[in-house]
C-alpha cells in the first residue's frame, strides 16, 4: 500500500541526496570509505537539514531536570522521548549534522551525475558468461541422494489426510512413490569478469606517504565507478622503481621503496600481462599509471612511448596517466607524453596537485566514457 507520506518522504530523500552531492568533494578526499565495497552501506555526514528559526542556543539556555545529584554534578544528556504523546516531539530532533546511510553504488552514481561522467559502452559483443548450477527447484523424479524430505513428508501427509488414512492418535506417515520429491538443479548464467584494471605505481623514493594516499583514494573511486559498469572486474597491481614487479593489492598500497625510476619496465610488464592473459577482443582493459613524473632518462621515456604506442594502446579502452605532484620530482614525464602522444585519442593525462585535485582528476580520466 502506498501512503500519502511517501511523496513527502521521497522529497526529503531528494534533498538529502542533493546535500550529499554538494559535499561530494569532501567525501572523495577522505580515505575512510576505501575499505568498503559495492552494496555496503556507508554513513556520510551532511549538514543538518532543517528549517532555521530564531531560537535559543542550547548551551546558553540550560534547563530544569529532576533526579538525584547535587550542585556541580554533571548531567548526562540523553535525549529520549518518554513516550510519544502529542506529536509535538519534532521540535527537539537532531541538532547539528546528520549521518545518512548510502550504499557505495549510490555514491558512485552521484559521483557520475555530479562529474557528468558518461556511461561506459563496454567493448566486445560477446559478454563472457559462465554456466553455474544451482539447486533451487523441486522435481518429482531424481536420485535418492537428493530426496527432499520436507516436501516428501508434506505430500504424504496431505494425501493421507485427504484419503482419510491419517490417524492423529497414531500419526504414522508412509510416503508412497508419488509423494517423493527431489531437489533439482537449474543452470544459470553467471557473468564472468570482462574488464581488467591494471594499476601501476611508481614507488621510487620520491613518492611519499601523501602521494600514495592520493593514489590509493583515486584508484578506489575509479574502481568503484568502473564496477558500476562491468559485472566483474579483474584488478592487477604493478609497482616499479627501476624494476617492475606484480604485487597484490595490499603491498601495492603500502610498500615504500627507494631507488631510481624506469617507467618503461612497468609498461613492459603490463603489456606482457595483457598479451598473455587477456585477449583484447574479449576484455575491456584499463591501465592506470601513477607517478611523480620523474623518469630516469630521456631514453627511457622514449622507450615508454614506444611500448605504449605499439603494444598497449591498440589493445586497451583507455590508458590513463596520473601525475602526483611531489616536492622531489621534476614532473617532466607528463609533458613528454603530452608531446609525443598527441592525437592519440585513447590517452588520458591528468595532474594531481593534492587531495583536492582528486575530484578533477577523476573527471579527467573518466569523462570520455570509453
Amino acid at each position, binding site marked *: 500500500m502506498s501512503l500519502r*507520506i511517501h511523496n513527502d518522504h521521497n522529497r*526529503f530523500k531528494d534533498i538529502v541526496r542533493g546535500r550529499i552531492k554538494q559535499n561530494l568533494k569532501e567525501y572523495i578526499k577522505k580515505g575512510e570509505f576505501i575499505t568498503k565495497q559495492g552494496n555496503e552501506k556507508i554513513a556520510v555526514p551532511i549538514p543538518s537539514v532543517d528549517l532555521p528559526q530564531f531560537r535559543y*542556543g542550547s548551551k546558553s539556555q540550560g*534547563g530544569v531536570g*529532576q*533526579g538525584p545529584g547535587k550542585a556541580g554534578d554533571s548531567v548526562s544528556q540523553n535525549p529520549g522521548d518518554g513516550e510519544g504523546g502529542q506529536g509535538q516531539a519534532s521540535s527537539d530532533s537532531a541538532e547539528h549534522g546528520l549521518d545518512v546511510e548510502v550504499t557505495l553504488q549510490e555514491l558512485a552514481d552521484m559521483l557520475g551525475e555530479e562529474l557528468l561522467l558518461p556511461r561506459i559502452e563496454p567493448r566486445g559483443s560477446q559478454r563472457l558468461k559462465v554456466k553455474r548450477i544451482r539447486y533451487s527447484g523441486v522435481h518429482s523424479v531424481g536420485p535418492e541422494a537428493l530426496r527432499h524430505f520436507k516436501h516428501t513428508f508434506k505430500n504424504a501427509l496431505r494425501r493421507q489426510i485427504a484419503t482419510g488414512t491419517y490417524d492423529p492418535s497414531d500419526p504414522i506417515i508412509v510416503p508412497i512413490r508419488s509423494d517423493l520429491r527431489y531437489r533439482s538443479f537449474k543452470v544459470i548464467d553467471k557473468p564472468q569478469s570482462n574488464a581488467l584494471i591494471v594499476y601501476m605505481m611508481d614507488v621510487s623514493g620520491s613518492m611519499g606517504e601523501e602521494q600514495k594516499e592520493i593514489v590509493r583514494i583515486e584508484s578506489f573511486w575509479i574502481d568503484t565507478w568502473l564496477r558500476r559498469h562491468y559485472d566483474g572486474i579483474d584488478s592487477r597491481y604493478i609497482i616499479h622503481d627501476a624494476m617492475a614487479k606484480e604485487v597484490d593489492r595490499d603491498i601495492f598500497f603500502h610498500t615504500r621503496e627507494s631507488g631510481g625510476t624506469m617507467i618503461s619496465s612497468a609498461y613492459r610488464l603490463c603489456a606482457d600481462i595483457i598479451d598473455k592473459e587477456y585477449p583484447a577482443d574479449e576484455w575491456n582493459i584499463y591501465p592506470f599509471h601513477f607517478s611523480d613524473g620523474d623518469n630516469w632518462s630521456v631514453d627511457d621515456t622514449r622507450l615508454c612511448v614506444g611500448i605504449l604506442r605499439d603494444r598497449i594502446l591498440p589493445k586497451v579502452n583507455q590508458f590513463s596517466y596520473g601525475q602526483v605532484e611531489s616536492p622531489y620530482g621534476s614532473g617532466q614525464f607528463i609533458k613528454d607524453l603530452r608531446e609525443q602522444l598527441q592525437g592519440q585519442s585513447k590517452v588520458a593525462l591528468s595532474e594531481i596537485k593534492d587531495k583536492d585535485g582528486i575530484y578533477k582528476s577523476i573527471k579527467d580520466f573518466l569523462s570520455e566514457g570509453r
Partner: protein
Amino acid sequence: MPKQLPGELLKLQLRVEEAARSYGLSFFQTCYEVLDYDEINMVASYMGFPVRYPHWKWGMEYERLSKNYEYGMGKIYELVINNDPCYAYLLESNSYVDQKLVMCHVTGHNDFFKNNFAFAHTNRKMMDEMANHATRIRRYMDWYGVDKVESFIDRVLSIDNLIDCHAAFIKRGKIVDEEEEEPKGEGQVQVSRLPADKEYMDRYVNPDDFIELQKQKLKAKAEKARKFPKEPARDVMKFLMMHAPLVRWQRDVMDMLWKEAHYFVPQAMTKIMNEGWASYWHAKLMTEKVMESSEVIDFADRHSGVVSMQPGQLNPYKLGIELYRDIEDRWNKGRFGSDWDNCTSMAERRNWDKQLGRGREKIFQVRKLYSDVMFIDEFFTLEFCKQQGFFAYGYDKKRQEFIIESKDFREVKNKLLQSLTNLGQPNIRVTDGNFENRAELLLEHKHEGVDLDMQYSKETLKNIYAIWTRPVHILSSLEDRCFCLSFDGESFKEKLISK
C-alpha cells in the same frame, strides 16, 4: 476510509467513557481508528492529521519515527487531536491492556481540550481546515510549480514561531491602521503662544526654553506618527503577511500557515497540564474502574515508562501528574490560604489536615482556568520542589558539559518559568518597517538572559530577507554585548552597539 473499530475495542470505549463520566469528566465524542505502525508514523509526522499540505519536513519526521520504530528505540502508542469530534489513533499491535490505558489517557486529553480556557478559541473543525489547506496548496503547486511553492513554504515556516501566542485573548493595536490624518511635516510645527499685552512681556509669558521644549515635544509626536508600525509588532509573521511585497498566492499560503501555527499554540501553552491531566486520569480510571487484576503488572510497567525521568530532561507527564496529585492532596487537607502560609512550625505543618476534601473540585478548576506558566507559578511550591528533587542545570564552559547548577527553589522555579514563557521561544518584535527610511526591516529581540543561536539566526534572517526583499536587521545581545546583525541579500554585517 476509517476502519470500523473492532467490537472488542468498541465495548472497551463505552466502558472507559462511562467510567470517565462517573468522575465528572466531560468530553467530545471520540472517533478511534486502529492503524498499523506505518500509518501511525505517517499520521504522527503530520502532527496528528491524516491530510496535510505536501512538504518535505513531514518526510523528515517520518524517516526519524520509522527509524526509531525499526531500531526499537520507541514507538507511538497513541495520538489524539483537538477537534470535535475528537480523533484518536490506536496502534494495531498494542496489547489489550495498552489499548485500555491509551483510551483512558485519550479521554483525559479530550476532556482537557474541551474544557481548558486556552483551547476555547481553537477551530474545532481543524481536521477539515487542514485538508482544505492541503488542497489549496496542492493547487498552487500545480499552477506555479512545486519547487517555487515549497521553497516559499520553507521560508514562512522559518518564522512560524514568531507569532503572538496571546493573540486570541488580547486586542492589540491593529497592525494595519486606518487612514489617519496626515501628520504635519517638520516645517509646520507651530507652538501656540500665550498672548502678551506688551511686547516686552512676551519673553516672560512665553519663555524661550519652554517654547523650545514644546517644539521638541511636537516634533517627537510627529515623528512617532510617522513611525511604522506605531507599536512594535508582536506577531512578526502577520506583519510580514500584511506588509511584505507578496503576490496573492503567497499571501494566501502564509495566511494558512499562520492559522495552523496558531492552532498549535494552546497545545504548546499547556503541555505540562495537558499531559499531566491525561496521565492522572489514565492512572485513576485504570486502577479504580477499568483494569482487571491480571493486568496490573503490564499496566504498572507502561505507566512507569510514561512517567519515567531521565537526568537532564523534564518529563511533562511526570511533572504534571505529580503537581495535580499535590494540589489534590493540599486542598483535601486544607493546606492553603494565609494560615498555612504563615505557619512556621514544622511539626504543625507536617500534621496539617483540616479534612476539607476539596481536592477533586480544585483540580477540575485548575484544568479549566490555568495554563502551564500560571500552573507552575502558583502550585510549584518549595515543598514540592524539594520532595521531587528538581534541579537547574546549565552549560559549564570549562568542563564542556552540562552540570547541575543549583537545587535552590528560586532558581529552579525561575528557570522553569523562563523555559515556558512565550512558549520557550525568543521574544522578537518588529520595531521598524521603514528602518533608515529605506524600507528596511528592523527586528528587536527582547533579551531575557538567554542568547540566540547565531547560526540559526543568520539562516533565519536570510529567509526573512527573501520574504521582505529589502535588507533586514535584528537587534540582540550576545554575552552581554548589544549588537545589530544585518543581512542585505549578499552578506552579513555585525555592528556592536553601546547601550
